């Protein structure tokens, strides 16, 4: 497994939508390299025959009756939003044309 470097962190930060300063990228790259190194042994722990576990106590086919349950009013749903207009979330421009 390759070590994580500063360019990786810059790329990941873009994917994760977190702006980072040069200073932050430097620090984060150093810290993450140490952490990634410490978890490396995990990839050698299990053979191909070991199945993956995604949930500790798996339940399948969890259904409920197809009836209308509790719903939030538009006012409730918007109550914590930073900006709204006419019963809708108001967002900045979706396309880069500002």
């Amino acid at each position, binding site marked *: 497994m390759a070590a994580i470097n500063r360019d990786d962190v810059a790329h990941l930060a873009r994917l994760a939508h977190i702006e*980072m300063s040069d200073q932050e990228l430097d620090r984060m790259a150093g810290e993450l390299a140490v952490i990634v190194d410490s978890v490396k042994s995990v990839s050698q722990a299990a053979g191909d025959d070991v199945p993956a576990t995604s949930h500790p106590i798996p339940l399948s086919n969890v259904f409920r009756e197809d009836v209308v349950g509790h719903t939030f009013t538009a006012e409730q749903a918007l109550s914590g939003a930073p900006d709204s207009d006419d019963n809708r979330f108001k967002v900045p421009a979706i396309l880069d044309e500002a």
Partner: protein
Amino acid sequence: MTETHELIRLSAAELAEKLAAGEVTSVEVTQTYLDRIAEVDGGERGVNAFLHVNAEEALAVAAEVDAIRAAGGAEAEALHVLAGVPIAVKDLIVTIGQPTTAGSKILEGWHSPYDATVVERLRAAKMPILGKTNLDEFAMGSSTEHSAFGPTRNPWDLDRIPGGSGGGSAAAVAAFEAPLALGTDTGGSIRQPGAVTGTVGVKPTYGSVSRYGAIAMASSLDQIGPVSRTVLDSALLHQVIGGHDPRDSTSLPDPLADLVAAAKTGNVEGMRIGIIKELHGEGYQAGVENRFNDSLELLKEAGAEIVEVSCPNFQYALGAYYLIMPSEASSNLAKFDGVRYGLRVLPEDGPMTIERVMGATRAAGFGDEVKRRIILGTYALSAGYYDAYYGSAQKVRTLVQRDFDAAFTVADVLISPTAPTTAFRLGEKLDDPLAMYLNDVATIPANLAGVPGLSLPSGLADEDGLPVGIQLLAPAREDARLYRVGAVLESLLEAKWGGPLLAQAPDLAAAASGPVETLVGSQEAK
């Protein structure tokens, strides 16, 4: 003064009895706790366990319970055993009528339009909610130092950490600011704070307490559970919050066992208690190890059979956890986008697109540890690394489960120290994320496997006089065993100490100097 101090030192079970007998009212109890919070929580050297104090509503609920009791009749008969007993709620759990911050700037001032299922159940039991407790941001940490609203202090030594992420809940209970609290445990966030504050904390079987309304960090690991000063009190609270909830698709349909009865009829005679070879010894502080051995002696004297088990794959548990947890967290925290909740920060210049607003909002709203985990999770899930990291970690999860399965064929309950050390100093590990992660080495396996765990105080370490915790683990759905064994061990230890361990904690009220700061109000006031 002694009278009120006696009241706050009662266990929840004792308070419930006094309330039912009419010896004290819920308003008196609730007000006494609010006074205690005002006395020890604020100011420069305050415990800082609370982010928000909910005085008005708590007193109203208390008055309602008192009125029902005074009127008598069927409604009074139908009151829950904990009706009128106040409780604090970790600020990761959403509540109507109070802010929920998750310890993050990104949610500062946000009010949930709904209650978590566990909160609904507290309300149905008519338990006054004293307020919301401090935590590491989004429950990411082992010291509560990653809270955006300042660290909580350990009531045993105000210069030390109270554990984390649920340091606020544990410290509130240890400092007699609440008789009970709710916590959440993803890798040890209920049990490790319990250990370092001399309190009791339980991580129930995964899926046995609804997660609906707990702001998710890692959905396959998160579990809400009780925080208290006694084993019986945790059982009482567990009974209130547990049981199936159709709003959580991972909620187990099983009926809840009688945990209170298990705590009351504790008996370890003939029980096989397994020491996990990999979870003590090297890397564990001497005082932690000594108290662990003392407890084993007591259990042996009480008729338990002590066996040794080996869980060889636990050596990979910490690594697997630090791949699975950040992966799930990076996905769960994507919803904080500057559109639907809380903070929106506009970029200083350039085009005002949603992408750039998101980047600026998340940069300003998240703290360092949250950013680290999001980046780490994004890395572990990214193309080319997924199989090596996330995929491998999920296989380790299977191996850890198999280790537990094998161990539980020779032991009814497993036992280990809860945390490798006692409480460290504030700031000591803040710049070393990996050292911080190692605090969870003994608690993480239970989360990976979904099995229940309970931490209770096992004494004070010889070298620093600070509380040590001991952890009991049981097979999934066998939470009752934890209470059965925990209650026995607690009574044996208390007989040895001549009372509860917390009786030996320093007197915070005497230590509080300067004018009393009133805390009633929102966190903005702090």
